[in-house]
Every structure is written in C-alpha cells, then in structure tokens.
C-alpha cells in the first residue's frame, strides 16, 4: 500500500509538475537557452549546412540544380587561378607577424613612462577607426605614380625613375596591399596589448628595478609571460584573418593584376560567374585550412610556452627550493 501511494505522489500531472519549483526552473532554463540556440541554429548552422550541400551541386542562385558529387572539389584543385590565389596568403601572414611584432613593441614602449603617451596611442589607433572602403581609396591615391608615397620618398632623396610602380609591378604590389592592412590593424592590436600590459602588477617592475633588471629584461621576464595568452590569441586571429584577406585587394586593386586573394576569387566566382557550387566548395575548403592552421598554432604555442608555466619563479629557483624541501623531508 505504502509503495502504491509513493508511486501516486510521484506521478504528478504535467500541469502540477509545471507549477512546481523544479518545473518552473526547467521551463526558465529551456526558455532562456532555446532562443539563442534557435537563432544560432537558423542563422549559423543551417545556412552553413546548406552551403556544404551547395558544394556538391552545379547551380546558380536561381534555376535548376544538378548534383555533381565531388566535381567542384576536383575543379578547385585543378584550377591554377584558385591554387595560386591561396599562395597570396603567405604575404598576408608575413605581414601579420610584422604587424604583431610592431604592435608589441609600441605597446611596451607606450606603457612605460613616455611623455604624451595618450596622444601617441590615439594617433596610432586612429587608422582602425576609418572605414575600410575609405582606406582603400586613400591607398589608391597614396600609391599612384608621382602622388603621396613617391613624393615622400623623393624628399628622402629617391629618384622617381628608380621607384617601382607600387600597384602595377606584380613583384611588389602584394606587399603594397599588405602594407595598407598592417597600417590599419597595427593600432588596434597595440591597444589590445596595452590593455593586457596594464594588468601587470606595478610592484613587479619596482622589484625588477631594485634587482637591476633593464627594460628588455623586464619585457622578457615580466611582461611577455604575463600577456602570453593575449599574444597567442592575436597571432592566431591574424594568421587565420590573413587566410581570408579581402578588403584591401578588393577595394584597392579589385583583385586584378595578380592580387586576387582566395576570398576575392571566391567572390568573383560566386557573384560574377554565378558558380555558387564551386564557390561553396571553396568556402568549405578555406574553413578546413583555417581549422588546420588554428590547431597547428595551438600545438606550436603549447610547445613554445611550455617553460613559462611557472609563474614568476625561475626554473633554477624552483629546483633549489624543491631540493631544500627534499633535504628537510629526508632528515
């Protein structure tokens, strides 16, 4: 009998359960989580799944679709223009590394005691605030023969005849474009680094000063270990970002004259040539590359920073302490 009543009390009606504290909790949790999940699903995963599907079709935006299996992926590797556009990423990756080194350098200097550091920060950060399209137009004129850049170089004593055509010469035009993107994003990264550096405890610098550490040693042993997470993050973001470089080549050169990056070529194939299937395959392929790059970088940084896990204690000091402890324990 007792068992029976227990079952009955457990078997509340659905309405009762809904009104109970536990039921309300569940309802709230589900209600709160379902909206973001639904949005995420409808606007991210569903379109993405559709895009992966498109990659297996020969199709335009409108009209009939034809299933072609892996033909688009085969075409992707067979086409010289796509493969060579991927190589251009190397320029942007090199640019990204230079950019991070510069940003780190400037951030370190500006977070030490510098006069008018606020002004410098503002000036260096300013390019990031300008619209990317406007930057494109600025640099188009900047690199035009005999315009800004050439004039400045002529002040420095260069002869116009010895200067290359910055956007026409295919051996140099990609560097010109990379330069414009470094100019734009350097300030933003610098600000991120400054933010990270400010979280370092000031007393550490004082202690280091007392111990006679110079500025470089302070950077090497105090600043860099403290902000290594943000450095890693920035490197990963800029390397993956350089794989999908788009704005500079699209606006400045329209992707012509050997400056068409993977994204620009993809855009042309999708929108001018209306080969949506091939473009989707390219997008999936790019995603795979980005995954691989990110994983490789993660592994690399795990390896590179393996020694930096012991906070502010040097390895030798740690060894000594362990030894001492061992000796104590042995006695």
């Amino acid at each position, binding site marked *: 009998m007792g068992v029976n009543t227990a079952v009955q009390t457990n078997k509340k009606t659905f309405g009762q359960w809904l009104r109970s504290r536990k039921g309300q909790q569940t309802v709230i949790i589900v209600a709160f989580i379902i909206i973001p999940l639904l949005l995420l699903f409808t606007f991210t995963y569903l379109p993405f799944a559709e895009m992966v599907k498109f990659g297996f079709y020969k199709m335009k935006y409108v009209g009939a679709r034809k299933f072609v299996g892996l033909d688009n992926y085969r075409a992707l590797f067979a086409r010289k223009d796509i493969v060579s556009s991927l190589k251009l990423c190397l320029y942007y990756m090199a640019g990204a590394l230079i950019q991070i080194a510069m940003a780190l350098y400037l951030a370190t200097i500006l977070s030490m005691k510098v006069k008018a550091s606020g002004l410098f920060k503002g000036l260096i950060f300013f390019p990031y605030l300008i619209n990317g399209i406007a930057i494109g137009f600025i640099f188009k004129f900047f690199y035009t023969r005999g315009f800004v850049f050439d004039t400045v170089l002529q002040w420095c004593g260069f002869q116009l005849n010895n200067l290359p055509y910055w956007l026409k010469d295919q051996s140099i035009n990609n560097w010109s474009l990379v330069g414009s993107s470094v100019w734009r994003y350097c300030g933003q990264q610098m600000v991120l680094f400054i933010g990270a550096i400010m979280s370092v405890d000031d007393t550490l610098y004082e202690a280091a000063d007392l111990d006679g550490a110079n500025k470089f040693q302070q950077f090497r042993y105090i600043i860099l270990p403290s902000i290594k997470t943000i450095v890693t993050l920035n490197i990963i973001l800029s390397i993956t970002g350089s794989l999908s470089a788009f704005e500079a080549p699209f606006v400045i050169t329209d992707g*012509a004259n050997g400056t068409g990056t993977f994204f620009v070529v993809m855009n042309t194939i999708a929108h001018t040539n209306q080969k949506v299937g091939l473009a989707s395959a390219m997008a999936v392929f790019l995603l795979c590359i980005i995954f691989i790059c990110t994983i490789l970088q993660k592994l690399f940084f795990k390896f590179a920073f393996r020694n930096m896990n012991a906070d502010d204690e040097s390895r030798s000091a740690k060894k000594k302490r362990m030894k001492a402890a061992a000796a104590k324990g042995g006695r």
Partner: protein
Amino acid sequence: MKWQQVMAAAVAATMTLSLAACGGSGKSGSSGGDVTDVKYADIKLGEDYTDLKADLKMMTNRTDMLDEGYTGEKTWAQYLEEFNKEYPDIKVEIEGITDYSEDSLLRLQGGDWGDIMMIPEVDKSDLSTYFLSYGDVDSVSEQVKYPNRWLYDGEVYGLPITAVGRGIVYNKRVFSEAGITAAPKTPEEFIEALKKLKGKTQAPLYTNYAAGWTMGAWDDYTAVAATGDGTFRNQKLVHAKDPFSDPGDGTGAYNVYKILYDAVEQGLTEDDFSTTDWEGSKNMLNSGQIGCMVLGSWAYPQVKSAGDKGEDIGYMPFPMTIGGKQYSPADEDYCFGINVSSSADNQTAALVFVKWMTEKSGYSYNEGGLPLAVGDENYPEVYDEFLANNVEFVSNEPALEGEEDTLNELNADSELMVAANGNDKIQEIVEHASNKDKSFDDIMKEWNQKWSDAQEMDGVEVK
C-alpha cells in the same frame, strides 16, 4: 497568464492591422483581374482618352530628375506638366528609388509597386505574370524602333525610355593639333592616330583599368559594332565555333580586343594602369590630358560638363568598318513595364503615358539618346559624327525561342561573361600587354578553348 494572453492578442491585432494598412495604401486603383484590351498601337496620342481619369504611380531610377536643381534638360515635374496639358485628368505620381536594380526587384515581388516601373532583371518567362503586354511585336515595331529588350513569345512587355549608341569619346582639339583630320575608320587607322597623339597628351587612350566596369564596356563593341549583325550577340555567339579568332578582315571581337592590346603594348595608354581614376579621368579628357576613352554615349555629357573645355569634346563611331559601313549598337536603357494587376482604366492611362513619353516627350533626345519612334530622325548632337559617316544603328535581336538562357549559361561556365560584367578578362588583356608575358593570339586561343569547353559542357550545338 490572462494578462499575457491579452497582450499577445493585442500585439497580433496591431500587426494584422498594420499589414492590412500596408496592403491597402498601394492598391488604390486595383480592382483585380480585369485587363485592358487596349493595345499600344491602337492609341492615337492627343485624340484618344483625353478625358480619361486615373491616378498612376510610377517608379523610376532617375532620382536626380526629381530634383529641382537637375542640370539636364527637363525634370520629371516639367515632363508631367506638359503631359497634363494634353491629358489633364491622368495624374502621375513618380517615386524615385536610389538603389534601383535591387530594390525594384524586391518591390516587384512584393506586388505593391504602383502602375508603371522600369523593368528590373527578371526572367523573360516571368514577364507575363508581372507586366501587361503592349501588343505583338509586329504591331509595336511599326511605331517603336527598339521593342526587342523584353520580348517573349512574340509579345512586347517593355518599351525603352531611351536607347544609346556606342562609340569613342575624344578630345577634338587634341586630335586636330596632332594632325588627325578625319576620324579613323579601321583599327589600324586608330592605332596610327594614337601614335600621332603620343607625346602630345599624357595618355592617347585612357583604359580606366582600375574601375573595372569601364573595361567590361569593351564587350559592348564586339557584337553590332564589330559585325554589323544584330543577331550576333544573342543568337549566333552561342553557336559560334571559336568566336574569338581572327576573321582576317579587321572586324570581329578579336580585332576589338586587339586594339586595346596593341595600344597598351605600344605604350599608347596611361603610364600606370593600376591607379587609373574614373572620376578624375572625365576632367583629364575635358582638359586634353587624355586623347580618348572607349565608352557609351552616356559618358559624353558627363565628360563635357567635367571641366571648362566642354566644346572640345566629340563622339566618334567605333573604328571598325564592315563591308564599307560602320555600325553602332543601339542599346536599350531601362524599359517601361505596366502592372498587369492594376485596374483596366489605370492600365489604359499607363499605356497613354508610356506612349506619350516614348513618342512625344522628347525624353530620349533630351537625355542624349537615339530617337525611339519610327519616323523620328531627330538625333541629338552627340551623334553628329555618326550621321555624317552614315553609321547604322542596330539593336541586338533577342535570343531564339528555347535559347533564352543559353548565353547566360555559356557565360557562367566559360567564366568569360561577355557583356555581363566580364571585367577581369579584359583587365587581363591590359596586364599581359603591359608585362609582355603572353601574346594576344594566345589569350584569344585560351578564350576560344573556354568557350568551346562551355559549349560542350552545356550541350550547345556548334554551327
């Protein structure tokens, strides 16, 4: 719980009401279903329907003409004023749309757009679901010169607001100072002329490479101007075997593109093609720093007004002679389409208005376009040299039945995009000519290969 239900009901009610309001405002004249049986050709302007009462709504891409300060000949308000002198009871309300090509498609699909619109890029097979037919092509073409743009199943669904010819904008003063008295008529003569200009201007021919679409403009000369044949673009090109090979007589697409290649290779264009500037080039041509640019006649007034030497600017036919005669394409601008679901009265009134705009308003003349009505030979001054040289204007005939989409398919599969924003391929001509890393014949061979691959892929018969 109750309170929530009330709220939900209230929200739902407001939404329905606002939807109904949206639907109601636009369909003022719509009584649904009944279609006017009046045809374009039957209307006699100034005699029929002068007492017809209707309120029309029209959508236009020419927002600049709604502005009082429009620098052209006449504003919309002025055209409407003239129209209302003859038809006092047909009121036309004009709505300007800035991003026309995209927004008009959305409005068209929404169904709430008024009575007359400039037909956006729709499939020809869908024309009859949206637009009223002006009548069969034979009856319309007795009165209008260019009814082909929106022709489907023998019925005309769109009439152009204007049509433009294509030649070369040039600086007359610079040409005559270089000793060029007669306009060149063949590619060789044209290259010779550019050579004479070298040293007298910064760029005898300005490519406008960087803008992209200005390069794609070269495609527009490869059909009528290069063959004299109105059926080439939409009927023959799709079946042509190696359309980019040299016909040997200085005509055809091959020789059009060769002008560009030769000019760049021989240094007859600007110093640095990668930083050309379209807006600035208009003024440079006006002041004589540039010799000429290959652009449609719409560019002529812009170049003329881009500086204080407007009187130096001329417009010459494209330097290509086919069997002793020069040709210019007559390319239709946006076309008037009439809403098939408007009321019969509104449709009749719209037909009257379109007919008046086409034949009586002088719109095409005022905007520098070709005369549209049959029998009208009143050309604006931009075509003076075309008339003097007896250039024939030919419009592209529509594709054959069942092949309406073939050109689009071949264009997409070959990625050449002839006359469909295929800017990259022409930019490549400039690059290869400048870097001297690929001969012109090799480029054309590559294009022929792409074209025949696409023909094979799509199963198009090669004749």
